[in-house]
């Protein structure tokens, strides 16, 4: 009986896909924007040594890409809350975590021009499947 009522409560496939896609896209956008902001600054550890922690914080906070990253990460968080309101954590958690790995790898290659060679692709896919297995 519980299984039947749970099944009835679950949204349709398209709706569920859209909810998970929203989390995945916003998380990846947030990660890539944040990575772009940090890469543009150079080694923060070195900057802290030369100019102090205040200079690091000032540089990070004043970066538009960093602020954009924060906005997308907040959107990802609220998308996750919304999805959790409609679906089980056991589905949303692993699906979003593992798919984000793959989309972020594609985004890092396209937008950050990272050299994603065969080794990194293999790693992304292995970790993606691993995260899915571990969360079950």
């Amino acid at each position: 009986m519980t299984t039947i009522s749970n099944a009835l409560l679950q949204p349709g496939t398209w709706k569920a896909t859209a909810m998970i896609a929203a989390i995945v896209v916003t998380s990846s956008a947030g990660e890539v924007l944040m990575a772009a902001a940090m890469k543009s600054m150079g080694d923060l550890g070195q900057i802290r040594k030369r100019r102090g922690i205040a200079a690091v914080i000032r540089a990070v906070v004043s970066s538009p890409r960093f602020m954009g990253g924060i906005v997308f990460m907040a959107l990802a968080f609220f998308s996750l809350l919304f999805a959790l309101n409609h679906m089980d954590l056991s589905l949303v958690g692993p699906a979003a975590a593992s798919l984000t790995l793959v989309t972020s790898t594609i985004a890092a290659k396209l937008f950050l021009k990272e050299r994603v060679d065969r080794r990194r692709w293999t790693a992304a896919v292995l970790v993606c499947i691993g995260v899915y297995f571990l969360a079950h």
Partner: protein
Amino acid sequence: MPHHRLSFRQYLILAFVSVSVPLGDSSLARGMTRLPAISLAHPFTLIGAVFTPWIALGIALLIGYFASYLTALSWADLTFIMPATALGNVFVALLAHFWLHEEISWMRWMGVALITIGVAFVAHGPANTTPPGNLAHALGTGLENDGNLIGNPVEMERR
């Protein structure tokens, strides 16, 4: 080919990125379960919860995670750091099994093995494959200015 080897300090930061999230989440969970149930009618009791030792420790760990994650992104690729972050899940599974003596299903052990192999694949290669110049070119205008605000120490040292 850009080939940036990591220093011991940078490996320490990566290790902290891996373990801080699971440790922080566990501290928060431990702190919150010890508190009496908080109802929506009294939301301000949540503020008091922040000052309890376990929750304060959890928050400190998560702030530390964010700071070390940003630092790591400044000298390593996103595709290098992401698998390292996933390694934290492996630590949790190992702690749960060997310290808390929890049963781990074969599927979870498979997950542990796959993540470990994946991280080994990435760790074997270069940490950073995008020199700042390439990135600025890739993303268009704006980044160069960001970089000039404080200068890029790695590039400055090369000069």
